């Protein structure tokens, strides 16, 4: 039996929703995002870097704005721009006596200010910038899917590093004593998280993209007894919220990013309320 969803325009079946090309693209992009954010999110959460996702998303705005100013595909500028900011944040954290959140805050404000400056330099009205602020399932292009695929492939290549990343996340000093290159890994993880953030922007918007990294992982932590279990849980929460959120978005004409993130928040709330703390 097919599930039936009421929408303002009539009745749409699940099959109808997913037969639409833009919904298929959104679903693929969303699931790729769930996989990527679910994979990296537990590292972000357990390292106390939840603010990093938000900071990088705002930093990406600087890159997007520069792309719009130069008249080139904004995401292609946002990738190196955000990766550069991630490297800068990690460098400042390691070299100075300021806390990580302060380093993120500095780069966040600097990149946003640059973004605003770039947009002001562009003479015509830049409505497209709002697509990046709030995200849109209609905005996901085949090129975005390719970007997601490349990032998934890149992540697959780093799978052998999962154990040492997790080890350093558990105890940085123990890992360093065992010759894990913790500083190199900090840079690598920061750049990969930056790339995930940029890929997610089209779907959920830069204002909400950090939620993808943080909420599924935080929800999964409520019932996970192991770190690997937390990763699997975060992927599942992310995937479920993408599928249900996109269907709600289509059926009720809701902003896709907001629908997905609100579902993630609901799952976290239920997890926090009803799961026995482990």
């Amino acid at each position: 039996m097919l599930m039936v969803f009421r929408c303002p325009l009539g009745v749409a079946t699940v099959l109808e929703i997913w037969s639409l090309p833009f919904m298929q693209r959104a679903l693929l992009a969303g699931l790729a995002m769930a996989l990527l954010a679910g994979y990296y999110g537990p590292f972000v959460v357990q390292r106390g870097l939840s603010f990093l996702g938000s900071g990088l998303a705002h930093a990406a705005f600087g890159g997007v704005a520069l792309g719009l100013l130069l008249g080139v595909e904004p995401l292609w500028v946002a990738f190196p721009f955000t990766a550069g900011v991630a490297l800068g944040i990690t460098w400042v954290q390691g070299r100075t006596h300021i806390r990580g959140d302060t380093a993120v805050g500095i780069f966040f404000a600097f990149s946003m200010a640059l973004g605003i400056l770039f947009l002001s330099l562009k003479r015509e009205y830049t409505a497209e910038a709002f697509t990046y602020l709030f995200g849109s399932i209609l905005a996901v292009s085949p090129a975005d899917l390719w970007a997601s695929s490349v990032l998934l492939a890149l992540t697959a290549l780093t799978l052998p590093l999962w154990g040492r990343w997790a080890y350093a996340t558990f105890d940085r000093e123990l890992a360093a004593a065992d010759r894990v290159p913790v500083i190199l890994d900090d840079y690598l993880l920061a750049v990969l998280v930056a790339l995930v953030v940029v890929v997610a922007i089209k779907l959920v918007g830069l204002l909400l993209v950090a939620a993808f990294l943080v909420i599924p992982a935080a929800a999964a932590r409520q019932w996970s007894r192991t770190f690997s279990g937390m990763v699997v849980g975060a992927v599942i929460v992310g995937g479920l919220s993408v599928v249900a959120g996109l269907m709600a978005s289509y059926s009720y004409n809701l902003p896709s990013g907001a629908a997905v993130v609100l579902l993630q928040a609901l799952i976290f709330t239920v997890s926090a309320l009803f799961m026995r703390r482990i």
Partner: protein
Amino acid sequence: MNAAESTARIAVEVKELTVRFGDHLALENVSLSVPHGAFVAIVGPNGAGKSTLLKVLLGLVTPTAGEVRVFGSPPNRVDPQKVGYVPQFKTLDRTFPALAEELVVSGLRRSWPVRIAKEEYEAARRVLERVGAGHLLGRTVSRFSGGELQRVYLARAFVRRPDLVMLDEPATGIDMLGEADMYRLLEDYQKETGATLLMITHDWEAAYHHATHVVVLNRRLVGFGPPERALSERCLREAFGHVGHAHGISLSFGGGDRA
């Protein structure tokens, strides 16, 4: 004994070690030799450079000057399998989801396990039972007491059968019974393997009763040698400014062994 045999019997050799962090002088011109199989207690007031010395030996801190050898090699060239490290359990991130056996297997693999192989699980079980923590298998570390965590950390260090075990204030925060158990486990491990133990402690009495050698530090090396000599009144006064609890120990206050 020829020179080669003599070198082979030295586990840790520190020559004129100085460590600076910017303007802060953490260690100054420290020299000492730790023979294989010694149980060394490192004592000194807060800020004396005890942890810095341990971190230099672990290869985590680069000396500003001087030479350090662990089993004849620079610390960052030593096979990590030969060294076990027991950090202060208070540094444990209790929000990290982990099972006792995962923590132990991380000591075996030097990496965090995605899945634990059967033989790894058996190795973890054996060593956890050995330290009296077999009942902790399958339990998450976030709820462990200080004593339980200390046992799991010891199991984690022992599982790779290291020739050198370094411990950072292992007795802090555990009760007297747990402390006595911990020293028994350390001494049993040492008897069985002939390993060298290096332990930072604030407990002079424990250093006196359990260690074969004591290092008294206060940025400089104040005393080094057997406990009854290194924990001399003069060394303790020089390092701490008083002899404090040492009055309760039957120390033979001799001249001390100045380095």
